[in-house]
Every structure is written in C-alpha cells, then in structure tokens.
C-alpha cells in the first residue's frame, strides 16, 4: 500500500467553494513519488498566481479566487487509484499576498484585519476604506456604530472593504463571536491646508487593497526617450535641398512622468505599510480624477524610528506605469 504517483487537476474559479466546472480547469499534471520518500510535494501557488487579476479602479472589488486541487492517489501495488480515499479534494482561497521568511511555509497570516498597520491617515473630511476578511470577522464598530459582517461564501465577498466615514476616530474589529475584540485601528484625520494630498492604493502583504495618503510636497518630473536617423533630403531632379529641411530626423519619441511624494509625519507603527508598499507588485494613484497605475521607482527605504529620527516621514518616488504619448496598440 505505497504511493506510486499522484494525478492533480487544479481549478481556479470565482463563486462559492467547490463550484468549479470543467472550464475552470487550469492545470493537469502527474508526479511520481521519489523512491526514497513517502510523500509527493507539489507547489501550486505559482500556478494559481497566474489567474489572480488586480484591476483596481478605485472600486475596491475583491480579487480573491478559489483554487481547488483534485488529487488522485495511485497505489504502487495495483497502479490503480486507492480504494479508500483514492481521490481527495483540497479547497483553498487564493490571495495575492506573501509571507515573510520568518513565517515559514504555507503562511496563513491574518484571518481578520487585512492590513498590518493599526494606524490610518486620512485627510480631514475624507472617507476611507479598511480591508477585512469576512470569514474571520463578525462585526466592526466604527466609533460607536456597529456594522455586522456577513460572509456570503462567494469569493468576491471574502475581502470586504469597510467604508470609514470622514473624521472617524477608531475602528474596532471583532471575531465571529461578536464579543472578542481582535484589533483596534486608530484613524488619524490630518489637516493639510497647504499641499494637495494624494491617495496611493497598493496590494499589501495580505493581498488586499490598502490606501496611503501622501500629504506633503509633491514634485513631478518628466524624461524623454528618442532616436534619430539621417535623412536623404536632396531633390535629385533639381539637385538642391532646402536649408529648412533637416538632415537628421527624430523618431520613436516618448516620455514618462515621475513623481515624488511625501507622507508627512506618521507614527512608527506605520512603517509596515510603507514597507509593504515598497514590496508591492501593483499600485495606483488617484491623480486628476483618474486612477492611474504607478511603479515605485524608489529602491531603498530606511526604516525610521522615534528614537533615531524623532519625527518620521517618508519620501517615495513613483513612475507612471505608461508612456506619456499613447502608443497602446
């Protein structure tokens, strides 16, 4: 009764757990057991990642999907699927998150609040969003207003973005028993009379959209790339050329815009949010009424603390993730 090999079908889909159909089959594979081992190990995160899409447009739509591995276990004696429990189904909920090295294999991470920082900074008079995991949260109390959390079981409701009214002070996150207080998030409402705050949204460590406002000075720069070639501008019939007709021609011109943003003063425990921003694959800025994708151009971040730096602020560089001239074909 030894394991010979496994056959694995991997389904990635939306909807409720186990509601996959044949059209959701993304990968099918077989793997033999290595002769000196008892088990077979398959890494599936990389496979599932291909099918998680982050299409953020200031709409905070949950992007999680179900991943179901249907595994057939083959008996080495018979070359057939084992009689008992020969086919097993493993259901998982896929997030675009990651674990740290210290969190070891198959990290599960937070099952309630889906951001690591317990501080939020919002401009005065502006509402915000707070991501929570519907399976692990029973209710949230925003100041004194209770909002019950309902898990619809659909993948598009697993991450819920709680609306935080303007000028809120605290958000308390409770477990599904509605009595155990899990986390308290402090909302800092910042008055910024001089600069225009910019909202930057990124996919955080836990796979949820998280907002960071940059309250202070913004600088915008612009760089251009181009090429030139030499033209033959002679008129062969008259054997002349116009002096207003250049011998060099510029082409393939495009430009990209860079911006540098400043957070303003933040508390030390907000560092994790900045760190996750630096490690994010996807980020967007709310810019002139549109949600535009950006790439973080800053590569180094010095972690600041109150002891060393007294007041903590961060300057982060971004590049818009598109060319200035529309050449999308």
């Amino acid at each position, binding site marked *: 009764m030894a394991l010979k090999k496994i056959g694995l079908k991997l389904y990635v889909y939306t909807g409720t757990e186990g509601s996959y159909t044949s059209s959701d089959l993304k990968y099918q594979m077989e793997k033999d057991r290595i002769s000196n081992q008892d088990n077979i190990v398959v890494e599936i995160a990389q496979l599932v990642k291909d099918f998680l899409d982050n299409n953020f447009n200031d709409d905070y739509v949950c992007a999680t999907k179900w991943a179901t591995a249907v595994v057939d276990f083959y008996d080495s004696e018979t070359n057939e699927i084992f009689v008992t429990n020969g086919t097993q189904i493993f259901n998982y909920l896929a997030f675009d998150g990651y674990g740290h090295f210290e969190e070891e*294999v198959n990290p599960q991470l937070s099952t309630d609040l889906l951001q690591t920082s317990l501080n939020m900074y919002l401009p005065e008079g502006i509402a915000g969003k707070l991501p929570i995991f519907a399976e692990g949260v029973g209710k949230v109390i925003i100041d004194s207003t209770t909002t019950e959390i309902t898990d619809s079981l659909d993948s598009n409701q697993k991450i819920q973005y709680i609306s935080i009214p303007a000028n809120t002070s605290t958000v308390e996150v409770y477990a599904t028993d509605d009595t155990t207080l899990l986390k308290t998030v402090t909302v800092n409402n910042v008055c910024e009379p001089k600069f225009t705050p910019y909202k930057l949204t990124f996919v955080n460590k836990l796979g949820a959209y998280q907002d960071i406002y940059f309250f202070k000075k913004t600088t915008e720069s612009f760089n251009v790339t181009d090429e030139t070639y030499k033209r033959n501008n002679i008129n062969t019939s008259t054997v002349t050329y116009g002096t207003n007709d250049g011998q060099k021609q510029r082409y393939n011109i495009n430009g990209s815009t860079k911006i540098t943003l400043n957070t303003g003063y933040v508390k030390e425990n907000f560092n994790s949010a900045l760190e996750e921003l630096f490690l994010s694959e996807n980020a967007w800025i709310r810019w002139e009424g549109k949600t535009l994708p950006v790439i973080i151009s800053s590569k180094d971040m010095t972690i600041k603390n109150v002891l060393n730096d007294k007041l903590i602020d961060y300057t982060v560089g971004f590049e818009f993730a598109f060319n200035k001239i529309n050449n999308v074909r």
Partner: protein
Amino acid sequence: MSTKINVRSPFFLDLTAPVQTLGIFTCTTAGLSNFSVASSGFVTNPLLLAGSIVDQTATEFPINTTGSSIPRSVTYTIAIPANYTNVNDATIDCIQDFDQPTQSANEDPSLNNNCPTFAGTIPNSSGLASTAITLSTYFTSGSGADISSYLVTKSPSGVAVDAVLTGTAPSQTLTLSSSTDCQLATFIVTARQSSDSCTAISNSFTFASANCGAYDCTDANVVGGSIEQDGTVNKGTHTLGTLNALLYLGTDITTSLNAGANNTGSPVNKTITYRFNIPNGFSNSGTFNCNVVYSQPATQVLPTFDCAEAQITGGFISEQGNIAAPTLGAGTLVSWTPQSFAEVSVNTPQTIYLTITPPASGYINSGGADITPPCPYIITQPATFPECGLGTSLRFSKQGYNSPYDACGFNFVGDWYLGQGSPATYSEMISTIGWSICTSFSAFAGDDKYYVVTDGFTSVSTQSNFHLLKIDNYGTVQEVWLHNCSGGGNGAGARIY
C-alpha cells in the same frame, strides 16, 4: 475557516498515501483458531489473524475427571487494530467454546502408573528480583516412568521476566527473574513423561518484580471505548490487570454491555466504571475502580458502505484465465469486469472490477446506488506452469504459519524443506510477489500460510531480518514479509510486498 494560499509565496501540497480502511473488525476478521482446553484444564489460547488479546475470562479450568466432556467457554477481549472502520470502538469480545475432554485412562495416574501428578500450590511471588521453584516439591513422577521434561508457559509472552530451568528432570529448578521494575507474568508448568502422552499441570501462579507501588488507573491505562446511541458499550483497551466487572450506575453490565439508549435528542455523558482485579505484586490488593466518561450520541452513527466494508475475499483465476467470483462479507456482488483474461506465462496479478450493491440497512448509503467506482480486486492468475520445478532451489520452512508473528515462537531449527521456484533468484523471490513455488514439478499447495525462506541461516528465534512468503494453494507467492525475532517474543516485522 478556509485555508489561504498567499500566491506570492510558495504553497506546498504534501501528499501521502491515503489510509486504507479495512472494513469492520469482527470476530471473523480476528480469525481465532486453535483454541482448546485440555483434560487437565490447560487453556490453549487461540491464534489470531488480526488484533491482539487484551483480556480473557479464564486462563485455566479444573481437571476433568467426570467421565464425560464439559463445555468450556472463554471470552476474549480483542483490541481492534488500526485502519478498521470501528477502530474507535477499541475492542470486541469474541467467545471461544470447547468441550473439555474427560481425563482418559491413559492420563489418569490411578490407572496409568506412568503419569506424573501435581500436588499443592505453587505460590505467587512479588517484590523480588528472582525466585527459585523446586519443581519436584510439587510434581511427582509415576511409579512406571520418570518425568522427562517440564514445559513452562508464560503469559504475556513478551514481558521481561525470564524463566530458566536448571538441573535434570525430574529434579529441575525453575528460576524466575527480572532486572526490570514491576514486570508481571503468569506461569503454568506442565510435567511430561516420555513413555506416553500423560502430563500433569500446575496451578497458575504469578511473578512480579520489585517496585510496583500501588495499582491505580494509570497502570490500568484504559484507552478508547465508546457508547453507541442504542446503549451498546464498546470497552476500551487496558494494559495491566484483568477486568473484574464493568459497571454503569452501580449495575454490572459486563455481560449485557449496555448502558441504555439515549433518546434525549442530544448527546449525554455517561460514566462507565472499569473494575479491575489488582494483579499480584502491587502494594494494594483486591479490586480497583477506574471511571471513564463517554459521550453517547443522540443518533446512531452509521458507516458508509465502501469497498473495504464489502470484505472481499477468495475468488480464483484459472490458468486459462477464467474467473471464479470472490465472495463478499457484506453487500451483493452484481457483476465484474473483465469476464476473463488471456493465458499468461508467468504468474500475473490481475485486477477485477466488482460492481457491489450496499446492504439494505445498516449503512448511510443502504438502499442507494452501487458503489462507485467499482471495487478493484486483485487475484493472481497462475501461469500455465511450463517452468515449474526448473528454477532456483530455495530452502524454506516445512512449517507454515497462520501469521508471520508465529514464526519466532516455533523456533524450529534445522527443519527445512527443499522447494523450487519459478525462474527466479533468491533475491528476486523476496523482492516481488507472483512467483511460483514448486515441489518437484508441481505447484506447492501453501494453504495461504507463511513460510520462512532462507539462503543460509538455520535458527529463527534469534534471527534478525529474515523473509517469509505467503503461498497460496496454487504455489503463488501472495505476500513477502520482512521479520525479526532478535527482540524476543513474537518479533517485529511488516509486509514489504
């Protein structure tokens, strides 16, 4: 709570062979055999195909001199091995019956002056590292023949108490010793004389080494057990002591094994009292009660009828490939595919797919559809045997065993049988199944027993890592086991093919 995959970090599936259930463990599954009660009252415990004896209601009976046989019955409590559906029930009780024959004239010392006699009582001993028993104090040779040998029976056989006979029969001394604290064993001595089969047996006596302290529930170590909705009590296993009685609310339910049905609509906790006889060697004596609380469910939990529950056995494929259907322990065999196989030149395991209907009641899926997918069942199709007797010569035991664990106990030395296999070397023979074992030019009828196979050694009882082959009546090797007797007792081992 759903298991999360955070896709930017690896997520590993660690896949191992699924545990195979073996169906419901019953007394039939346990396969008790060879139980007997001699006229002297000596009880020969049954051999088991599966499971192990936890307790028994009698270890010996009085000598039968009535002139007619006496029906004797012993209830064995047997621990349910892992992977059986009802493993959580922990134990089952199996009753063994035997008619104890009356003492024959040949066994009667008053009629046969060759017969030895036993008188007195060999006392229990405890708290000692060793004790010596002069057997001639208790056994007396018949006037016609001296006692030629003594046989010492120890129970349980694996306990760390040594029993050594010194001197020459009939004046031998039995020395019991142990260097390990609190080792308990029960002994019976049988005196034999060589002229005929007349024997005499001693009383059952115990030896306990030092430092046992007071017996308590930790020593008893009750593990498992359950109460079903209808009140059926499944006893847990225990380690030390014999069960004196099983009580519920002060009432003895040892025989009924029922604590009353639960019709309350919700689970209830019930306390079952295990009353143990305190073994010799402990500082306390008499009986000791151990209470175990079980949660009795409100509804009867029915198992799912699957291929394991069907308990498929038997069947046959002829050399021509025709199939004789296997039999089922439960359920109904509807059909099977394929209907036949082509002839094969070497013994070939063939898979037959059985369509089975669940029993009408007793299971969750009773009255439902046939088991899907059909149950695979492997039968080895014998080769047409043109090669029988032409292969490598092997030495293997003349004695076949019902269980590989019996091999250590028999300790036959130099009792070998010359067998011949189908074209295979010794190393091939012990590394795969399906080979043929022949004697002369015919298949060896192995009776589905286990045979020691060797390439050189001649002693089993201390042998480490030797092989046993299970051989069916068609000479086909069905299983290969690797076993080891060097640790004493029944040894340790496992099936490797």
